[in-house]
């Protein structure tokens, strides 16, 4: 997974390069937005000039904020993938809610110390502190009580968030007017980001990517098989703490852009979307990183063009769009692929039913006077009405089966529509289907304890799934019984190209 790691790091480095070396103090380009009347709610279509300035990244500040939010999305996708695989998704929601009292307390402290401007690092430090405290509380409740995870998460989330809301009310009643910006941490406001803020996000994202890259194999093992990792002597607790520390880091740097209510989406949705596309961890990580970055970019563009549109919500909606597309069209586990497979299995089962029904009718029907050679068994026309009643098929089922058989060139029906004739290919296929079915049936009877694992509709031939020795054994079993179970000779040897029928 080396290339994946390199690519992930490169991606973030590129984001950094595109922002360029950052000077320290640059004011945000948000003033005009905040000066508008509060009663104005309609969305204004941006002027052509503004559109061009935004898309071409003409403003240095726009560039900075773009870089910051894109890096944030990328970091969220990266860490979120491990979090998702560790099955701790909801923990990130609890952690983000737990940051609110920390922000409030940090604000109160900075007021008490007499700072004039709100200091982002101090606020984020407070957020991280209570975020970690909340996470520790979850762990403690889980370890020291009989409560399950979900209850522990819900309790901690509501207690910390409640405390935060209470503190916010206190803050708003303070005489100083500095408190206005604090609500941005709840709902997010990317546009209020200064260059310094974006820089912080950027460096933090790089650090997060570096840790994920360095601990790639450790996290992989931790998420897949914790007990094994522990037995191998890896410090599982420390690894878990490192992973949760990354979650706190993403949450905290995401507070300003996305807000604590929605930052969970940044962690989970890109990761969940990426899971539909690949069965490789490295690729899943890259995709999640990419989806997160694109979502961030879309959100911040929208917020630059429409200052009244909340960037956090747009980022999340962009991620959700990617998720929806992945959910339906994902190459590995998407609905569409699932539906195609389902349909293919359905057709193959129907086809086998039809062929077997035809074979069995020929086998059962009274033979003509002179002894019939087995090769001629399937030469007779099969009366459709008898076929239908023997198999309890409704009229519609018979029609659809015949349509299937004709379209695949397995049979033809005579002009009156009363009889079906197997084509020469149909005869071969009918023999094969019947033989296969009977072998499977015998296998199920004989190996009832283990057989169900092996039954697979996609496997055209039993040899592709079952050990050939067992197939031979089954054939001998069948041959020993009376002629009802006479197995048609294997029409062709298994094709080597089609092995491995267990794929699902």
């Amino acid at each position, binding site marked *: *997974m*080396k290339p994946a*790691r390199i690519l992930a790091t490169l991606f973030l480095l590129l984001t950094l390069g595109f922002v360029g070396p950052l000077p320290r103090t640059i004011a945000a380009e948000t003033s005009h937005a905040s000066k508008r009347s509060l009663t104005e709610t309609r969305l204004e279509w941006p002027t052509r000039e503004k559109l061009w300035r935004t898309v071409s990244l003409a403003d240095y500040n726009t560039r900075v904020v773009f870089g910051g939010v894109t890096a944030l999305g990328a970091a969220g996708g990266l860490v979120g993938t491990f979090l998702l*695989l560790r*099955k701790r998704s909801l923990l990130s929601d609890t952690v983000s809610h737990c940051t609110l009292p920390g922000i409030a307390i940090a604000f109160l402290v900075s007021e008490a110390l007499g700072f004039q401007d709100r200091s982002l690092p101090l606020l984020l430090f407070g957020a991280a502190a209570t975020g970690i405290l909340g996470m520790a509380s979850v762990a403690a409740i889980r370890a020291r009580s009989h409560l399950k995870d979900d209850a522990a998460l819900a309790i901690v989330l509501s207690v910390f968030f409640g405390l935060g809301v209470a503190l916010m009310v206190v803050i708003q009643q303070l005489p100083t007017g500095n408190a206005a910006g604090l609500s941005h941490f709840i709902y997010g406001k990317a546009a209020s980001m200064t260059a310094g803020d974006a820089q912080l996000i950027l460096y933090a994202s790089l650090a997060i990517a570096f840790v994920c890259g*360095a*601990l*790639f*194999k*450790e996290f*992989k*093992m931790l*998420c*897949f*098989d914790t*007990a*094994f990792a*522990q*037995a*191998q*002597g*890896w410090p599982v607790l420390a690894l878990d703490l490192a992973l949760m520390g990354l979650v706190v880091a993403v949450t905290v740097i995401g507070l300003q852009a996305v807000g604590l209510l929605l930052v969970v989406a940044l962690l989970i949705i890109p990761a969940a979307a990426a*899971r539909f596309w*690949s*069965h*490789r*961890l490295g690729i*899943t990580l890259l995709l999640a990183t990419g989806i997160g970055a694109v979502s961030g970019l879309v959100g911040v563009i929208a917020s630059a063009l429409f200052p009244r549109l909340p960037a956090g919500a747009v980022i999340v909606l962009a991620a959700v769009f990617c998720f929806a597309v992945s959910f339906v069209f994902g190459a590995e586990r998407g609905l569409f692929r699932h539906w195609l497979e389902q349909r293919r299995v359905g057709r193959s089962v129907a086809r086998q039913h039809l062929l077997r029904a035809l074979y069995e009718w020929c086998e059962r029907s009274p033979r003509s006077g002179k002894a019939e050679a087995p090769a001629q068994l399937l030469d007779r026309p099969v009366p459709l009405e008898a076929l239908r009643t023997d198999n309890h098929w409704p009229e519609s089922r018979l029609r659809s089966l015949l349509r299937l058989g004709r379209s695949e060139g397995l049979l033809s029906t005579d002009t009156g529509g009363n009889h079906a004739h197997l084509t020469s290919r149909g005869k071969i296929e009918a023999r094969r289907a019947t033989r296969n079915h009977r072998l499977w049936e015998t296998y199920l009877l004989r*190996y009832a*304890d*283990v057989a169900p*694992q*092996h039954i697979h509709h996609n496997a055209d031939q039993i040899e592709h799934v079952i*050990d050939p020795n*067992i197939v031979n054994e089954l054939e001998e079993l069948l041959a020993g019984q009376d002629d009802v179970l006479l197995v048609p000779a294997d029409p062709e040897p298994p094709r080597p190209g089609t092995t*491995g029928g*267990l*794929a*699902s």
Partner: protein
Amino acid sequence: MSEPSPEIHPLEVRDLNVAYQTKVVVWDADFDAPAGKLVAIVGPNGAGKSTLLKASLGLLPIASGSVLFFGQPYAKARHRVAYVPQRESVDWDFPVNAVEVVAMGLYRRLGWCRPVSRKERDLAQAALAKVGLADHSTRQISQLSGGQQQRVFLARALVQDADLYLMDEPFASVDAATERAIVEVLRELRSRGKTVVCVHHDLPTVPEYFDHVALLNMRVVAQGPVETTFTAENLRKTYGARLTLLEEAAAAVERARVMTRHRP
């Protein structure tokens, strides 16, 4: 704790007690796995078989007692011990393929932060070949059958090249091909002087697959060579008077008797 003994066993469990909250699961268990033998731990459901293994490996807290691996605490002897957890213990819907799982057995040797290289992949591939999954190495693990998944776990233990293998129910609900493959691997390990301890649930196959047996029901009821220990009397003590099990046990003992008679 370690009194000098004539021979050091790969695994020595002394007076081991394990409890969940207040419920005792393993009680004063004494257990030795002799070197170079295939050892089965058998007992009824809930007898503490898996718990004994997990507690020995430090995965569960020990209430009292001691566990020594090659005469040393586990932390010192880790590199000589390989563990095969129960298949159900992990989520097989994880985005890795078979060879990546096997390579996890080499992570400790690799050390912190070093990525898996060509060399480790080759070793993992060779281990997969040993369990008959050479052409399944790039298959995503959820696409493998239960038995194949079990073999992937086995390969991950093999790649560690340990001296003692602890396996938790390796034969649980596997197909015939897997069962044969595992038995073959066990015998190959024995021929190289390795020791294997398996939690085993299938009484009838004990005499066929194993040399040594420990009968466990909270405490170790009896242990020793299969020929002398795997008796109807001991099984009754272990399983109690449960009728179906006793019948199974009787059949197993009968089989053991026949097997020993046929042994050279």
